[in-house]
């Protein structure tokens, strides 16, 4: 029985230590906002924060998550969708199908946490999540808008 800290709560998980964190979140903790897209850390749909850093949970085994690590999922980013990134996304109608957007939002929020005023080049370097609907132009605008709000 592993103990992990998810969204500020210590939870016990009865899963094999090799189980990726993504599937622990989705299948054991019913936190399905974190998405499966590739399973090989190539698409970013599974992005969560671990100790404030964006990480791809699909390749991170449960055994590698320490009980002192703070895991934050989209469900824990804010209580009511009021994180500046979520607000900017709502304002600009960023999502299309929306499937990749929870991972995209988590990646954007982590970027802004360490770089409150990212340039376009910073965004290009840090945001590598795949969106097949092609929302990138609004994602970029959303990050800039959220950066403005934070300031």
């Amino acid at each position, binding site marked *: 029985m592993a103990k992990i800290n998810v969204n500020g709560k210590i939870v016990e998980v009865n899963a094999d230590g090799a189980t990726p964190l993504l599937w622990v979140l989705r299948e054991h903790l019913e936190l399905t906002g974190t998405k499966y*897209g*590739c399973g090989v850390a190539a*698409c970013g749909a599974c992005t969560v924060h671990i100790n404030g850093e964006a990480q791809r949970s699909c390749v991170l085994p449960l055994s590698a998550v320490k009980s002192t690590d703070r895991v934050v999922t989209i469900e824990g980013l804010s209580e009511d*969708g009021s994180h500046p990134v979520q607000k900017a*996304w709502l304002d600009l109608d960023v999502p299309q199908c*929306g499937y990749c957007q929870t991972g995209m939002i988590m990646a954007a929020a982590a970027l802004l946490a360490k770089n409150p005023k990212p340039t376009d080049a910073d965004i290009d370097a840090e945001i590598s999540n795949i969106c097949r609907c092609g929302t990138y132009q*609004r994602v970029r605008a959303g990050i800039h808008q959220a950066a403005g709000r934070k300031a």
Partner: protein
Amino acid sequence: MTKMDNVSRRGFLAGAGAAGLVLGFRVPLGGGGGAALAGAGHTDELSAWVMVRPDEQVVIRIARSEMGQGTLTGLAQLVAEELECDWSRVTTEYVSPTANLKRFGVWKSFQTTGSRGIRTSHDYVREGGAAARDMLIAAAAKGWGVNASECRAAKGVITHGPSGKTTTFGKVAAAAAKLPVPEKVKLKDPKDWTIAGKPMKRLDTADKLTGKQVFGIDVKLPGMVNAAIRQYPLFGAKLKSFDASKAQSMSGVKKVLAVGGNAVAVVADTWWQAKTALDAVDIQWDDGPHAKIDSADIAAMVREGLDAKDAFVGNKVGDAKAAIAKSPKRIEATYSYPFQHHATMEPMNATAVWTPEKCEVWCPTQSAESALQVVAKAAGLDPSFCTIHRMHLGGGFGRRGAGPIHDYATQAVEIAKAMPGTPVKLLWSREEDMTHGAYHPVTQCRLSAGLDENGDITGLHVRISGQSILAGIMPGRLKNGMDIVTFQCLLPKGDHAISYDFPNLLVDHAMRNPHLRPGFWRGVNANHNVIYLESFMDELAKAAGQDPLAFRLKYMAKYPKNQAVLKAVAEKAGWGTPAPKGVFRGLAHCKAFASYVAACAEVSVSDGGMVKIHRIVAATDTGHAVNPQQIEAQVEGSFVYGLSAMLMGECTVKAGRVEQQNFDRYEVMRIKDMPKVETTVMPSGGFWGGVGEPTIAVAAPA
């Protein structure tokens, strides 16, 4: 059967079936009809498209699927416009294909492909809104004892002009629901629109920002188990045998079974357990007839068609071959377009629960009616005993469109049949998804043209060789063997007409079908045909020593709407003025899915031959534009999809197998690759064009 009569009659009013059947028809409530049917017997349904609750909430029914393209919001805007309701009180619900069957097709088509969600249903959904409005007004007038013609509705409030009395939709909704649905309604002139035609925010955004949005992959039912599947390693392969002895004893595993003669599934408590156990199943395959085919073999097979004597003729004006032969200057170019995968971000999945009496399936589909038929067949039940619970799609792009490629739904039912009463969620891994697609067909195209002394085109021959989607998945729709879809954007007339007049023209198709399953794909044949034609127009302009814009316009005299979008992008992009150093401009335009689109791109090529796209100026004339900001979003997205295919993605074949198994090898555009897109939405009115796909066609050639 008073109420039932009313319900069924409404079905016919909306334009389905023969009225003679009405009296004998009963709605079998409780037969698995889902939310729509539940609503149908309630007093708050007005027309089939609208329910109004006593608390003023307006529920607008949606038949088409939402997969990101914004159709759900656009359709709701059209209904709300005629209804004259308060937009802030609007919610939506999907209607069920089973309920549609039982109500004789009251909601008409659910098909959400070919950019048709709005352009083929705008009239009857608006009529549904208008009918409901008239019923609400009639109920209010009746209550007041006044003439309905003296009353009007706006923002959910009904006002009696002469007295100034007011009431609200919610207060009269129950009385209105008892009234007959009017047979004739008057639709508003689009110039008077206040909700439609405006850049309203999408109705489905909030839950997509918090993780609350439930996609098919997120479905959770009491007692549900999870299935992982390994399918045929190449198209045409069959399952020979499998040894599950090791897998069966692994943690959480419930069952290991063969599916459909060409796959093995493991069912376990969690999907991760199922997938882990599946990796431990030793499977033997019969590779079938295609195991020695590589990409080079397919390319050679398609290339042979470029010179083949026999070909289907899609468009013919005069005698192009003769005109080219006697021209002083002859130009020729050959292009090709590879297999592409849809690569929806949400992999294929479906959740099914089956008993001998009924079957319920939760799945993302672009065609809920096709899904129902597919599920009923797999379940061995009449469709009236089956239910499709419709989910928002995590991407569609055609992969979840045609009935014959709902293989994931069939498999889920087959697995569920082995465990009666237990809900089973089947999820394909990304690797299974990538290698069992319905691929953008592979084609090559040779264009030959003659130029006269003035640099004018004497004749053009467009020879397409390659795969037919219809032959691959819907052979019944071939006409005397010919696949009309192959000629998108090169046809003599219609939604996909060629937008040039040439003195002599021949467009023909030598069908060559490799073994990979083809499928409709965002913009599909429009996509490569416009790349072929517009790239060649640039070649011809160069050979003629003429400006590519002026050269095109010479042949576009009869196509003012194409001219308008093309000139708009040229002007906005600064065509004719010097581009930044090292940057080149390109143009393209077409008519596709009944819309007129154009693009002008600014690109540079690095020393290493890498193409970098800096800026794209796009213009779209959809006739009526229901939501301009969502049209912009679709145009922006189209460039991502089209350019991913043009510059990055390609599915190659080795030993009959698709080589790219995941996003690490099937590269697609990311934010760093995204050019700046400036979109002009310029609706000229008078027609309804599609939005999701047309721009794909001009993305790459520009």
